[in-house]
């Protein structure tokens, strides 16, 4: 398929998942704030959001 995917940001409520690294990472209080933040990020970066089964959100651009 050859589609290039890049992870632009990680949004999580769990501090133990917040380890730093290449993608920008955000620590948020709750689901509400996560929804708001990912929405703004996705809009600004014209990217998609994927919610992982473990609860974190990734902002992905392809």
């Amino acid at each position, binding site marked *: *398929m050859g589609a290039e995917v890049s992870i632009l940001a990680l949004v999580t409520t769990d501090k133990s998942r917040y380890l730093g690294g290449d993608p920008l990472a955000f620590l948020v209080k709750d689901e509400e704030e996560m*929804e708001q933040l*990912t*929405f703004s990020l*996705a809009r600004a970066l014209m990217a*998609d*959001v*994927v*919610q992982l089964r473990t609860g974190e959100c990734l902002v992905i651009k392809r």
Partner: protein
Amino acid sequence: MENNNDVISPEFLLLIITATVVGTIVRSLSIKQDYRQYPNYPNGTLIHLVTGAIASALGAFIIPTLMTKNFTAVTFLTLALQQFREVRKVERESLMDLEKNEFTKRGNTYIDGISKTFESRNYISLLVSFATALTMQLLNVYEILTDYTFITIIVSAAVGFIVYFLLKNFTKGRKVKDIATVREGKIEIKGSELHVEGIFVTNLIGLKIGQRLFEEEGLAAIIEPNEIHYRITLEHFGQRQAMLFESTRVLGLKRYNYTFQNLRDGRIVIAFIPIIKDFDLFKECLLNAPLIESVKKSPRLMGGTVKAGGQQ
């Protein structure tokens, strides 16, 4: 080149004009105006008409150059070949340039198919006008109908059109509706995953607003191949991209577009959020989407019977 300064004889002039006109008419017939609306009207069409006219002029010149013993002039045929390849290259380049700005990509496979078609249409023009000129010349040489110029023109034009229909039949492309059926798929959102009829399509719609949009306005189609060996064609990424492209060209695209194949049974899902939500139109687009030449495989030429993977 002893003939270079002579004035061209009226017979040859008539022959060249007839053959060129027939070739140009053939080119204009082969520019299809259908829902794909490609080449664009009016400028794209004009470009192809003019290159077609030049192609047919080249075809028309072959006979007179041979008859006047200008054998070196036949080398201009290599020039013709160059010109047609240029047509293909230009077509490809301009479509490649558009890729970034379309709703979805055409994909390289589709672009290759389109530009090849344009090249071959020019050859058709050339061959038709050559056939027309040849008929006229033969009628002259064997002194059939020599007194009836008008009838000679009609007869040779008829031969030209017969050649056109033969070639058209030969180069005829098939459509998705020849090998598959299309029906509407039910969109289900499970968390951030999109499923259509139980087939996983994507998990990229994590935003609540996107999920709502997909539930309210999304369109999804399921494409099922009629025979097992058609899966090879339909599941090709280029072919799926072409189908998606033709649909979004007609219906527009708000956001999100996905194609996905179910590897187990060969169902293909195409889902996106259109500007105009009309499933019938969507179905029509998919059914009429062309099968790309480079993707097509003939099961007859593969030999043996084709079975699904895992079945013996």
